[in-house]
């Protein structure tokens, strides 16, 4: 059986849930201490005090938990992953897990990227949000996108998650009407995310990250080949990992492309390492792979 480890994108992560795992799990405790040293503050304390679900400390904590859960799964189930993938935020944990960056560097990079992204969107594209919605088959969705175009509403896909399941970046003022149209075709709008993500509009952020953040990091070739979240290509070099991180700012996540590549590579089981409510559950995942959810609940369950 060929297994790939997948690090999920980040969803809302309640402090109580994340903190309990970080205190109970030995790997998580060790990695949390290492991450705190790397970023120069107590990740646990700052995460506890932050009110934003996606604060810098929340992002570092999510990163820590994902890496710790992958380590736990490797030990608990004897996993020897043949490939690794990390859609969206999952790229950060992937970078550490595959050895493309030492863990401490990846932790610091996670913090720096969170900070830079927050600074960028504090002044840029303040009118844009990313809307997720589901049950919107392409043939029904396409006319709604044409309506947006006809009204002069710029829009851009940020994530292709599954058949009929997308994230679209558009103006906040256009969301209410677009949601109404999505409901009219039987679709279900889910979340509106601010700041937005993964769009061609954000080339300025990509440039800032390339010029001012990544320069101090040296990426090694990953010990495990990586399937890129933007196009499903296989990445085997440190330079490739660096480019994947940068491209993530300006190109959509295409999870079905990742799934297709993993399947072509003979992968039959996915270990989804981290708190996940999405990637390990969508149809294109569960219909193609056995899914092993390495989540905090399972990791804290007494061994029987």
């Amino acid at each position, binding site marked *: 059986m060929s297994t790939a480890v997948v690090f999920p994108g980040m969803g809302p992560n309640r402090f109580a849930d994340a903190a309990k795992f970080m205190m109970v799990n030995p790997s998580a405790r060790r990695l949390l201490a290492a991450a705190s040293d790397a970023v120069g503050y107590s990740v646990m304390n700052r995460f506890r005090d932050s009110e934003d679900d996606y604060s810098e400390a929340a992002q570092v904590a999510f990163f820590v938990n994902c890496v710790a859960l992958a380590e736990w799964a490797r030990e608990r189930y004897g996993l020897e992953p043949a490939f690794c993938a990390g859609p969206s935020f999952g790229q950060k944990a992937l970078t550490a897990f595959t050895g493309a960056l030492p863990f401490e560097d990846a932790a610091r990079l996670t913090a720096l990227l969170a900070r830079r992204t927050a600074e960028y969107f504090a002044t840029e594209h303040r009118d844009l949000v990313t809307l997720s919605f*589901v*049950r919107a088959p392409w043939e029904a969705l396409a006319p709604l996108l044409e309506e947006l175009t006809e009204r002069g509403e710029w829009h851009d896909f940020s994530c292709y998650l599954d058949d009929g399941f997308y994230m679209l970046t558009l103006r906040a003022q256009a969301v209410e009407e677009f949601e*109404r149209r999505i*409901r*009219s*075709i*039987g*679709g*279900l*709008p*889910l*979340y509106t995310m601010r700041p937005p993500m993964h769009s061609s509009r954000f080339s300025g952020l990509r440039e800032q990250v390339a010029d001012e953040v990544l320069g101090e990091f040296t990426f090694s070739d990953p010990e495990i080949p990586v399937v890129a979240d933007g196009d499903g290509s296989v990445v085997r070099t440190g330079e490739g990992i660096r480019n994947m991180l940068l491209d993530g700012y300006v190109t959509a996540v295409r999870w079905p492309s990742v799934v297709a590549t993993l399947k072509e590579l003979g992968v039959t089981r996915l270990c989804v390492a981290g708190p996940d*409510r*999405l990637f390990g*559950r*969508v149809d294109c995942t569960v219909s193609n792979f056995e899914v092993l959810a390495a989540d905090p609940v399972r990791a804290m369950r007494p061994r029987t």
Partner: protein
Amino acid sequence: MWDQQFEDILRRALPYMEPGETILADLELRDYGLDSLGIVDLLMDLESTYGVQFRDESLSRETFATPAGLWATLSSLTGAGPLPAA
């Protein structure tokens, strides 16, 4: 009150609901583990079982907040009576 089919379908959609635990009309479904993808599966189950299609206002997040709200919406789609006041 809702029918047994609804009760069974809803119970399957609530991972944190203990077997035998009573589903109260005003229970917060989200607290019992009904998340976004859970709502999608629940919708599909209800649509196929009751032969209805959720559209427009019936697809708001509020519809899936409580069993009473969901049953009221489903009843409006099937033409059945609303949930009587407790």
